[in-house]
């Protein structure tokens, strides 16, 4: 069963790299969002730095949304999902495997890209550490919660918009704690809030690691039969 899990992760990752353009699309969108912000608020560096973590997280959320709809839909449309369901691997694990490889191809690249973007937003270099850490802890939640939306809309062609709508509310805690953990409390940040929110972020992530696959599997079953 572990083998099936690995095979699935490997396959999805390979497909995402070859076909989806997932990673590339996400990173580029990420870059765009971040480079748009200075246009909006003008070149006030102090201001930029203070909202940088927030902007990065918002960008992260948005670019995660971009790649969601293909998570299950491609497999649904070509019949692969039917066969994946008749396999020995429980559907929950199928969902988990897909969410995981989604994280590998979107969340991870963004974490790696984050410091570079921090530079663009003139983030202090000592803030990079917390930022990257926060993203590392938080991004899995985006993929695993996102899977729920993707699974719910699997039978809908062009479900992308709807899927994002459904998951955005679920992303909000991740966003809030993520920003907090990245030390983006803005001017009024309570001292020590960063560490606390990192814990909370971790908690949310852990919950999503369980909740995501279970709910996704239920949603898939609802849609397939």
């Amino acid at each position, binding site marked *: 069963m572990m083998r099936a899990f690995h095979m699935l992760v490997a396959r999805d990752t390979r497909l995402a790299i*070859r076909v989806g353009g997932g990673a590339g699309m996400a990173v580029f969108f990420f870059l765009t969002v971040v480079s748009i912000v200075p246009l909006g608020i003008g070149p006030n560096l102090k201001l930029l730095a203070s909202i940088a973590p927030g902007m990065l997280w918002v960008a992260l959320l948005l670019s995660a949304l971009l790649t969601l709809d293909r998570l299950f839909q491609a497999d649904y449309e070509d*019949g692969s999902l039917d066969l994946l369901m008749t396999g020995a691997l429980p559907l929950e694990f199928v969902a988990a495997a897909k969410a995981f490889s989604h994280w590998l191809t979107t969340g991870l690249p963004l974490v790696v890209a984050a410091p570079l973007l921090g530079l663009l937003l003139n983030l202090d270099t000592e803030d990079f550490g917390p930022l990257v850490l926060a993203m590392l802890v938080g991004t899995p939640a985006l993929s695993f919660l996102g899977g729920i939306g993707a699974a719910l809309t699997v039978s809908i062609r062009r479900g992308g918009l709807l899927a994002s709508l459904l998951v955005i509310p679920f992303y909000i805690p991740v966003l809030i704690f993520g920003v907090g953990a990245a030390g983006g409390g803005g001017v009024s940040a309570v001292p020590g809030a960063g560490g606390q929110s990192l814990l909370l972020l971790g908690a949310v992530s852990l919950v999503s690691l369980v909740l995501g696959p279970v709910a996704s599997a239920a949603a898939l079953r609802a849609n397939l039969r």
Partner: protein
Amino acid sequence: MSYESKRHFPGDARLIAENLACIRGGRVVFEGLDFGVAGGEALIVTGRNGAGKSSLLRQIAGLVDIAEGRIALEGGDTELTLPEQTHYVGHLDALKAAMSVRETALFWSGYLGGGGIDDALERLDLGDLVDLPVAYLSAGQRRRLALARLLLAPRPVWLLDEPTVALDRASVARLVVLMEAHLADGGIIVAATHQDLGLGGARSLVLGAPQGGFADLHQDASA
């Protein structure tokens, strides 16, 4: 686990359906369906378009809800659910254009817990195509790759939905040989088809038009 090892299925396994009913899109497709297929037997499901052949196969594979009644594999592996003991080959090929033939076979063999792939590909005459991307395959070649899944991991129940679609005569013959081998191993085959496969000693199930369901509905509407 080697490929040959698990080839022989318990001969006393028996796929049964009792008082089976299927509802799709709020309409009764069929109801009160009963049948039993023993190991080594094939059941050929026929009927006009829309009679419910695919729906029946998908019910057995656990892909469509069973509105009523039950389906079970008696004498099958008690550890596994019925879907886990079935190979379902449907209208959709479940192939990825971006993967090569070999990659596809390797993935499914690994995912379904099977062994080597070469023998399976050979027996469906895909030997020369292993390195082609699936995107390059012709309809029949795609179909054969989909069918190769049957051999990648041994499973007692084969569910074939119009398996001969897009196959040339040689490939059809090849498929029939495979099916007969499976039956000889004590396997079970349920196949929906419009053209005669010329399979030795196959039982046949004819699905009719789904009248029953609607009469009642009209009554309750008037009531």
